[in-house]
């Protein structure tokens, strides 16, 4: 036999190599001719070493185990609790057997992967489009109050920072002042971005008052609100037939 003919084979590990040798020598896993198999295994390791110094540690550990088994086989057999002779090869045989079963399973799974790799699953990120609703939603007070809460939540954090500053503030702002602010802006621009207006408010008191002013204008039926979709900005518009300013 050409000792080095197996060099190019790519083994997954020492157990894989051992299984190869066992099959090649047509021997039983539970009755390995340890001297011969160890010799072939060592030949393989040496051959690899001469070509590639980075022989995996795992192969060397197995070599040591094989040599240990070989030396135990030379000694008189031990007996275990049941007075039966312990076979030093038994543990290795069990490992090899178990590993062989898993190799069998992996070739079974390998067959199945063909159709798996030929199947595409949609990327769950791309669902946006289904939520695009072409028409604007008329806004009710619930939506409006939600937007307001969002603003409040954001400004809470801002106001934490401005706390000290605000303590010295005694300025009062009235709903009436804010109503005229909205009216003036509407008269100039035709429509307004609610979030933009909010962001221009000096502090939260102004923001809240602006909100109340908007509610008042809505009540008077002077303005209407539109929103493209949930959480979008709200656009304030003048109701048709109404005079502003």
């Amino acid at each position, binding site marked *: 036999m050409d000792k080095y003919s197996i060099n190019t084979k790519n083994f997954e590990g020492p157990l894989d190599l051992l299984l190869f040798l066992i099959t090649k020598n047509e021997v039983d896993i539970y009755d390995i001719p340890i001297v011969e198999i160890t010799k072939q295994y060592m030949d393989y390791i040496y051959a690899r070493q001469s070509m590639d110094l980075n022989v995996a540690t795992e192969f060397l550990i197995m070599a040591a185990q094989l040599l240990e088994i070989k030396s135990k086989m030379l000694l008189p057999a031990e007996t275990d609790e049941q007075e039966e002779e312990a076979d030093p090869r038994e543990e290795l045989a069990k490992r090899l057997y178990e590993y062989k079963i898993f190799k069998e399973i992996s070739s079974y799974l390998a067959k199945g992967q063909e159709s798996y790799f030929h199947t*595409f*699953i*949609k*990327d*769950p*990120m*791309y*669902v*946006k*489009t*289904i*939520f695009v609703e072409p028409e604007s939603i008329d806004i009710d007070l619930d939506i409006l*109050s*939600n937007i307001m*809460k*969002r603003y*409040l*939540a*954001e400004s*809470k*954090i801002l106001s934490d920072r401005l706390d000290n500053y605000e303590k010295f503030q005694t300025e009062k702002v009235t709903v009436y002042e804010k109503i005229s602010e909205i009216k003036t802006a509407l008269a100039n621009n035709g429509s307004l971005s609610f979030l933009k207006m909010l962001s221009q408010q000096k502090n*939260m*008191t102004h923001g*809240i*008052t602006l909100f*109340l002013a908007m509610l008042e204008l809505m009540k008077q039926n002077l303005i209407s609100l539109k929103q493209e*979709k*949930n*959480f979008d900005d709200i656009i304030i518009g003048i109701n048709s037939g109404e005079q502003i300013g």
Partner: protein
Amino acid sequence: MDKEILKKAIEAMLFAYAEPLEAALIADVTKTDIEQVNNAASELADEYNYNMSGLVILKLKDKYQMSTRAEYFEYVQALFKEYISSKLSQASLETLSIIAYRQPITRPEIEAIRGVNADSSVKNLLDRGLIKEAGRKDVIGKPIMFETTDRFLLFAGVCDLSQLPDFEEFSQNIQIEAEEEIS
């Protein structure tokens, strides 16, 4: 190529691609021409409509896209609403709402607001693709910042964020404070 096969191939391509797909590209891939593609795609779209399938094939200029049918929108919407409320723990929901309103935000900042360790909820949200990393903050320790993803927008777009339990409380407290200030 047989028209029936072309139709099925278009079906599979539109599904996998998810975004609007150019008729020219379909023709390229299937070695047909644009006319054949338009022909097959419009037959396919008709069949979907005739059967009132849960899906539709939309024509957008020179592109096609597969999408859910508007008639079944409520179920899809309910599904995502259910997902967000049943699948996320209270802690994750809290962390998610903080990130949603304060993004980009670092973990220490989240923890400062929540008052508890946010490791596992941040990990959970990352795993679910609801948030993602957004660079590092230029402060000591260069902590990673987080922001919400497109997927989050999807969830948020169909469910009312202000109804998230802790956020409701959070904003109510502020409202009370605000009202006191005004009066």
